[in-house]
């Protein structure tokens, strides 16, 4: 192996990389729900794992958090293997999961005050309450919170220990649009401060809004990784040219729409081509193609 080949790998596994995954496999009852995922998350970036329900997002994140055993592959998170890392490592990561309870009988403030005592260092309760917009509900018992408020409390608990790396598993589930916006602001604030964020979502707008890079998971495999605007580069190069001819809609899907247009214009020397449109796939079209759920009516 030459020095030139070694160098990038050394950088990759070093200080610039928060998460490094190679060939991750997780099986349930013989069925692989995560099937050979390779993934790198750089320090300081917001990385979104996007995919439909059952794509393996939660399982992947749970392996990274060290709460689920893997059946194959290598995983390094903040320089350590999550399967064996200890408390000091765990105190450096924050987790907002889907399956964790908060208890019902305490108030919001009591809950935050209590869990502050588990960390080496903790954000003040007042700061957390303000950041997630629960200041007015501070004295409310958790049992009486709405689903969205409860989710915000869980987000507050996730960032309480001032983590370097934050995992957010479908964090905005149940939040109303205002709370969702506020949560996005919180994530931007964390990013601005240098926190690495790995979030899963099935909301495209959320991924586009927050993520530096998006990984699309489908059937346990990572089918694409790119900044949101560049996702599905191959698919985006294709345009659809539509026009009306003899009362019927004609459609051509092509990587070279200009050539199609030149032919069309030549065929209509008199001027206008009726009903002419040229469209390129939006994020949603690209996403649906990537996860293998081609939108209805699209011919390929």
């Amino acid at each position, binding site marked *: 192996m030459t020095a030139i080949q070694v160098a990038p790998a050394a950088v990759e596994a070093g200080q610039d990389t928060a998460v490094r995954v190679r060939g991750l496999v997780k099986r349930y009852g013989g069925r692989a729900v995560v099937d050979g995922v390779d993934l790198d998350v750089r320090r300081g970036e917001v990385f979104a794992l996007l995919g439909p329900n059952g794509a393996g997002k939660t399982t992947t994140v749970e392996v990274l*958090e060290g*709460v*689920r*055993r893997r059946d194959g592959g290598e995983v390094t998170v903040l320089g350590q293997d999550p399967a064996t890392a200890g*408390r*000091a490592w*765990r*105190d*450096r990561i924050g*987790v907002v*999961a889907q*399956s*964790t*309870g*908060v*208890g019902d*009988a*305490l108030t919001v403030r*009591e809950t935050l005050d*209590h*869990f502050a*005592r*588990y*960390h*080496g*260092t903790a*954000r003040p309760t007042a700061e957390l309450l303000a*950041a997630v917009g629960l200041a007015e509900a501070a004295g409310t018992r958790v049992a009486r919170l709405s689903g969205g408020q409860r989710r915000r409390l869980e987000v507050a*608990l996730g*960032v309480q*220990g*001032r*983590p*370097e790396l934050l995992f957010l598993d479908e964090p905005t589930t149940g939040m109303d649009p205002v709370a969702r916006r506020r949560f996005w*602001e*919180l994530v*931007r*604030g*964390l990013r*601005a*401060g*240098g*926190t690495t964020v790995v979030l899963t979502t099935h909301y495209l707008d959320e991924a586009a809004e927050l993520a530096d890079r998006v990984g699309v998971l489908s059937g346990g495999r990572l089918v694409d990784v790119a900044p949101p605007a560049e996702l599905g580069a191959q698919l985006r190069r294709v345009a659809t040219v539509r026009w009306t001819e003899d009362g019927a809609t004609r459609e051509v899907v092509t990587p070279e729409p200009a050539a199609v247009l030149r032919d069309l214009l030549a065929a209509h020397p008199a001027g206008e081509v009726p009903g002419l449109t040229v469209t390129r796939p939006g994020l949603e079209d690209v996403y649906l193609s990537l996860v293998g759920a081609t939108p209805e009516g699209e011919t390929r």
Partner: protein
Amino acid sequence: MTAVLSPATTRPAPPSALAIGLARTGLELRLFVRDPAQVVFSFAYPIVMLVIFASVFAGEDRPGGVPFAQYFLAGIAATGIMLTSFQAVGTALAEERERGDLARLQVIGTPPLGYFLGKAGQVVVTTVLQLAVLLTVAATAYDVPMPDGVGRWLTFAWVVLLGAVAGTVLGIAVASAGSSRAVGNGISAFAVVLQFFSGVFFVFSELPSWMQEVAAVFPLKWLVQGMRSVFLPDAAAVAEPAGSWEHGTTALVLAAWVIIGLVVCARTFRWRRTA
């Protein structure tokens, strides 16, 4: 406007298991008092037992001419300890696991020992309060003589403590066996049968010898016997299976169950039902 939130630049080591155990003892107690059903059940059950036993069998004497209420106070106190430790912990833990409360503790980096200490702390406090209420009622309403002398109170203290700790670790151990429903039902059924075998409802020495032998394997029989040594006059010791209170054996059996429970906990404790 985006508020910048930075990660910690210096990070002290996370608090010790002992510190978390203390914090959790406070939390567990707070959760306990906010659950009226649990409070009523824990405190009222032994007293209701005492009232029923003393009323039904009023006037009957037991070995050594001991009044009924005095003889059975030992069994009722022991049952109370089992209730607030083994039964309460096993049931609560299975529910906490099912609700995902334990998964939260896991992702936040709680040392299992800190969690166990919190349970044990809560159990010791609630057990002491429960026994205080029970003994007060027994002494004032049924004229049961309280233990005389420091020696008896010391015996009372170590029997309560060992019994409560054994109950706690065994409760944690069995809570991993299944769903909260299965664990709750299993513990209740087991506890009732064990009470019959261990001389809570009957005079132990009058039970068939095979029942006595089965009971001697489990901690409750020793807990009841230890309590009899506290509440009965020394003359009553001749009615015991060995003709004495067997304090040494009692301590050994209870300690052995603590160790067995700890080994099982260390090997089987899980924050989640699946990994």
